[in-house]
């Protein structure tokens, strides 16, 4: 029958259970001392030791070819590991961007040398990557970026600035988008290139941007006459726009787009049980959140199945992110409705800290990785509007 979108189900093989149990028992031990604040950060939380341990266990670069140090496992196995990590609110930030984005990009478009040099280090959890897209004057309008790459002897000189770069101050490398030809006015989507930049190179200054939670997890990265050798351009010169947008499309439907607030739900259930609050409202709100979670998970799995079989359901992925972010954003409010807790952050109280952190952070969920408005524009176009 005709439908506007494709969402064939992807059933999970029962043999994945042992892997799931393995991850779960590791997390059970590792999470003992995690504060609510730490759990709230989840995949943006930077914990190098944790990432190194995850790497040792073979849970980074799981699907990548063994020739580059990957583990040659299935996308489903990776999915199981990732969703278990997110359900626990594990601090994945030191390896997340490399595992989700930079590694796959290098495997798809990188040179043999780039793969040999970087993939094994990502797999071990040693090399942390950040993504340099936004600029002070270019947010959603990404093609308008003004940071430039100029051809010089043996490579490129970078000039300009990137903002909102998550964890740049702790990362080793950035994959940054720069204009290498023409201007945004004339060429728009042409003339942009992606570079792999060692953040220790001279001329790079990383300044923290303090956010409303009082932290500074994102940064402004200033490039002042920064040299990047020729062999650190990724893919094709001038093709950076389609490379970067394809990269964004791939990451849109993963569990990090609907599970960012999940850890709050089990704690809410325990709170409600401890005060014997199981009234109709509590049951309905909890039940509604569970139904949404299960449906989003089915949608996300379906997209994984389509990607694995060589399709690129970009519209469906945008749709899952839009739905997923809206779901995530409702959770702290749902909890506030059910549990009348004061607006203060009590350090020793995991639930209270997590609620406090997420309440202040959820506005960014429909900004990062493509704003709701950009996504809805993509979806509308896919539907034949415009």
């Amino acid at each position: 029958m005709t439908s506007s979108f494709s969402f064939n189900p992807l059933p999970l093989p029962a043999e994945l259970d042992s892997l799931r149990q393995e991850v779960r028992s590791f997390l059970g031990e590792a999470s003992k001392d995690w504060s609510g604040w730490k759990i709230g950060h989840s995949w943006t939380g930077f914990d190098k030791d944790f990432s190194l341990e995850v790497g040792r266990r073979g849970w980074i670069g799981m699907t990548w070819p063994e020739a580059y140090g990957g583990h040659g496992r299935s996308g489903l196995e990776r999915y199981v590991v990732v969703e278990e990590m997110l359900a626990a609110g594990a601090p994945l930030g030191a390896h997340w961007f490399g595992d989700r984005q930079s590694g796959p990009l290098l495997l798809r478009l990188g040179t043999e040398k780039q793969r040999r040099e970087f993939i094994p280090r990502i797999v071990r959890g040693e090399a942390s990557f950040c993504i340099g897209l936004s600029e002070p004057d270019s947010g959603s309008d990404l093609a308008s970026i003004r940071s430039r790459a100029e051809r010089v002897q043996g490579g490129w000189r970078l000039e300009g600035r990137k903002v909102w770069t998550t964890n740049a101050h702790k990362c080793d490398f950035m994959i940054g988008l720069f204009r290498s030809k023409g201007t945004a006015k004339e060429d728009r989507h042409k003339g942009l290139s992606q570079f792999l930049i060692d953040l220790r190179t001279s001329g790079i200054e990383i300044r923290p941007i303090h956010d409303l939670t009082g932290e500074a997890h994102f940064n402004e990265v200033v490039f002042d006459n920064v040299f990047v050798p020729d062999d650190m351009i990724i893919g094709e010169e001038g093709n950076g726009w389609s490379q970067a947008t394809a990269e964004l499309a791939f990451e849109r439907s993963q569990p990090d787009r609907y599970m960012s607030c999940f850890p709050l739900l089990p704690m809410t259930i325990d709170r409600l049980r401890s005060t014997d609050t199981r009234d109709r409202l509590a049951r309905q709100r909890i039940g509604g959140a569970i139904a949404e979670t299960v449906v989003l998970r089915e949608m996300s799995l379906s997209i994984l199945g389509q990607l694995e079989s060589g399709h690129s359901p970009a519209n469906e992925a945008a749709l899952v992110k839009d739905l997923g972010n809206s779901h995530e954003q409702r959770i702290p409010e749902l909890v506030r409705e059910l549990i009348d807790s004061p607006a203060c952050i009590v350090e020793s109280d995991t639930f209270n800290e997590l609620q406090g952190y997420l309440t202040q952070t959820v506005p960014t969920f429909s900004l990062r990785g493509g704003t709701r408005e950009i996504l809805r524009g993509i979806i509308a176009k896919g539907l034949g509007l415009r």
Partner: protein
Amino acid sequence: MSEDMNISMMLSEQISRLLTKHVNRDAWIRAEEGQLDSDLWQEIENQGLTLALVGEELGGAGLGWADIEPSVRLCGQHAAPLPIVETMLGNWILSQAGLESVAGPIAVSSSLFQINENGCLSGQDEQVSWLHQSASVVLIAINSHGERFVCRVDSPFNGRKVATYDRQPCARLELDGVKPNAHAEERGKLANLGLMPYMAALRSIQIAGAMNHILGLCIEYANTRVQFGRPIGKFQAIQHMIADLSGQAAACQVAGLYAARQIDNGHPEYGAAIAKTQTSMSATRAATIAHQVFGAIGVTDEHSLHYYTRRLWQWRADAGSDYWWADYLGEKALDKPGADLWNSVVSRSVTA
């Protein structure tokens, strides 16, 4: 592709052809006047849809619930004004209890009735669709030992008519000491909720179909209706509403199929709870958006939109609303420590 999937595809293609040809505004109006289109019914029966879930040994096609999902979705997509899904469910549960299926439309009650030692039924259901147009009613009755029986009774044609939002024929069913024409104990498929989860699964799939149709209507209208010198679909405000609608439609498509797969997988209640919570919730949002896109023309009698939005308002309430099923899910979740929640989500994955 498995043989069942092949049969399922061929079946849905035939159903699509039939419904496209015969279901239109006139057909909806005749149904609202209480008429059942017996010619179309015969053609649907000839395709084998009403016996699709019945095992081959009992004369059916022996398809699973996931296999018939596309055909059920089509019934929603076309707002088919016939008790097709009710009859599929009725024949299926008869066959599950080893009873013979019947020809012609079947009305189904999702309420639980009582059956006494003499084999007489009592109980009532305030709302049974197509009761007066069907020769038989299929229902579940429970005896004093808690055993469940699948029962088929002759339709009592005297039940008071009930006015519903979708204006499909509907009547109250009351049985007081009536002997079923056929009954047999059913041990496998029915838990405390009787037929309710199965009906909820069907309604969820129908909602997905109706919503997909509404989405198509909205896209077409937005691309053709001109205001301020351009099609309204050029306005971001409209685009974003329709994008939102498409998200709801997609979620419902996934949820409806999920319910069907969970029946095949042995978790009908859980699947129905997830699906009906999602689809009924989305139905509300979808109807709101669609009427906003269409403006005043969408609420006029001559426009086809209301045949769909009234069904959404009907189906979101049938066999348990979103609030009812969310309550069911939430109660189960609150029965166990929070740490069990995640496992309850993943352990009920539909496995390969």
